[in-house]
């Protein structure tokens, strides 16, 4: 796939000088007739090519710019927490500047600008209900009350609980299924399983959430007798349905990329099919499988709709996997719509978003830089 393109590119470069102009101004031969005109055309022509290339590059660069913008703007809204906790509270406590989301708001812009203006002069003062970095590490999440508490611990543990359940269920199922398709599967089952995975990947998360909320939670409660119908386990199980396609696809990809020489050598030495699959192919694809699991964790950690609908959404700080939990992403989804712009609660939700972003970004970077390169190195020369 890659090889031909690089070849083409070098050829394109070779082909460009000299030959380019002829066709372009065949119709305008009157201009091309004089050597001066020829030169002018050639120049203009190269300029156009140059401009197009720069424009295309600039637009391609937008993807990177968006990442930077997401960083900047999600963090910007969370920043007041760290620079002027006292100030933010004072803005929120002025009823004149309080605006609720979604309603006709007059002068919100000035309010926001004012708040931003004030951020520049941080005053060390910790009022009741404000969120300092210290207050964020607390066991109670009660953002809407007379004395709001912004302890993130229940949310963080909630996110981890659901993610752990989801990945623990999804990873073995997905990896073994991938092994099945690449090593054992008869042709017909391959043609069933792969499209099924694609279908599963295509089911919108809100549909999975709905299914979990209405059908799965009740069924599981009937079977296992959970005290709470919606809990971390149900949420994690539903979430695993969203994670399976990711882990499966990447694992299957890295399993098929294991060089044939390796499998053939193993088979030639007398190993059976399953021995080859388990002791040769699977270990050889470990970096890819690791990448699959990491990306699965990232997906599970950031997924919103499924956990919002299927975990019960109670911010309880506990270790139980069969109790309702509220995850970080679900808190943003559930509370952002009712929050006061520029308020501490607003900033805390953006802060949670920043954590989610940083977490998934780090996982991605690890996958990109560490895992892929190791995979490349391992198969080099084969």
């Amino acid at each position, binding site marked *: 796939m890659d090889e031909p393109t690089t070849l083409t590119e070098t050829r394109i470069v070779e082909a460009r000088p000299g030959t380019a102009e002829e066709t372009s101004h065949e119709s305008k031969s009157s201009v091309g007739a004089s050597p001066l005109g020829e030169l002018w055309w050639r120049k203009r022509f190269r300029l156009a090519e140059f401009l197009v290339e720069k424009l295309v590059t600039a637009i391609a660069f937008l993807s990177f710019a968006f990442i930077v913008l997401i960083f900047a703007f*999600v963090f910007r809204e969370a920043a007041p927490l760290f620079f002027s906790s006292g100030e933010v509270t004072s803005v929120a406590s002025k009823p004149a500047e309080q605006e609720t989301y*979604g309603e006709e708001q007059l002068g919100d812009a000035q309010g926001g600008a004012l708040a931003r203006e004030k951020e520049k002069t941080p005053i060390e003062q910790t009022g009741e209900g404000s969120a300092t970095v210290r207050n964020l590490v607390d066991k109670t999440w009660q953002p809407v009350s007379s004395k709001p508490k912004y302890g993130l611990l229940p949310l963080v543990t909630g996110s981890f609980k659901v993610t752990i359940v989801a990945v623990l269920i999804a990873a073995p199922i997905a990896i*073994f299924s991938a092994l099945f398709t690449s090593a054992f599967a008869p042709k017909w089952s391959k043609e069933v399983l792969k499209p099924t995975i694609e279908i599963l990947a295509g089911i919108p998360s809100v549909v999975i959430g709905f299914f979990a909320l209405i059908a799965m939670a009740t069924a599981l409660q009937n079977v296992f007798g959970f005290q709470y119908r919606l809990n971390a386990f149900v949420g994690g199980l539903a979430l695993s349905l969203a994670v399976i396609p990711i882990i499966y696809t990447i694992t299957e990809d890295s399993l098929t990329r294991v060089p044939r020489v390796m499998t053939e050598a193993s088979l030639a030495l007398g190993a059976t099919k399953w021995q080859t699959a388990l002791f040769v192919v699977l270990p050889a694809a470990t970096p890819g499988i690791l990448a699959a699991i990491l990306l699965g964790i990232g997906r599970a950690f950031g997924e919103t709709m499924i956990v919002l609908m299927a975990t019960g959404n109670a911010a309880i700080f506990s270790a139980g996997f069969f109790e309702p939990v509220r995850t970080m992403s679900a808190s943003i989804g559930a509370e952002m719509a009712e929050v006061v712009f520029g308020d501490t609660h607003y900033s805390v939700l953006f802060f949670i978003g920043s954590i989610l972003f940083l977490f998934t970004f780090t996982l991605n970077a690890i996958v990109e830089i560490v895992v892929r390169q190791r995979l490349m190195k391992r198969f080099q020369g084969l």
Partner: protein
Amino acid sequence: MTLKRKLLGFSVPALSALCAFVIILMVVLIIGDIVLGGWGTLSWEFLSSTPKEGMTAGGIYPAIFGTFLLVVIMSIAGVPIGTITAIYLSEYASRRSILARVIRFAVNTLAGVPAIVFGLFGLGFFVQFVGTGMDQLLTGGVQLKWGQPNILWASLTMALLTLPVVIVSVEEAIRAVPRDLREASLALGATKWQTIRKVVLPNSMTGILTGAILAVSRGAGEVAPILFTGAAYFLPTLPNSLSDQFMELGYHIYIMSTQSPDVEATRGIQYATTLVLLGLTFTLNFAAVFLRYRIRTKSVR
């Protein structure tokens, strides 16, 4: 030893077959449950009428319309940018150039950013920053028009989310265009851009279409990015301007099944709405699969 080997030799394939079976079973269960639950309520009446009696009766036409509008605006914004990025990655950038690697990394990262973070970004950037800025410029901040959630900001947020989908599938299609075609064009004296415009792009049109369809399917199904950038619980009228809020299928499912005053009474509506959304995304996905299959067979020939 031999017993252990025999046991393993049986259990490894059996276990992996079981896992594969579990996946198929779950998919069948989900689809079966939703089709069975929603089929009874689904009718032309349901698809073409507005919600009535405090959303406990009536249809979902505004949500279908809103979803349609959302994906159209999203495609107009996202598909050209995605296509051009794919052109850059496959035609202009050499594999080793740092810029191309940075862009590739950015695209991969963009694909991994949680949907809810896109929602936050849409709120912080489009609504609060761009929207409020536009209000300041246009009316001096007196009138609040753009500085609040609306369908334009929701669509642009969604365009950002679906950008990687477009880029990946367009790039695949462009790379599938045979080298001979490019070389023939170049040998005839066409420049690089002429070759791209007259040879590469027409030949990867199906791929661009596939990318757009996949993006639309993804965009129609995502709810988290529009939770607070423009989706509304109930609107008496259809949106008729870019600065209006809108109803959306996925959001409708979420809201009806979690926050409706009488969740049990509207179960039929919930199921039928879910069935409509599922049907929509499946139709789109199958179209994309079909197109992609055609590209692959073409590039082999």
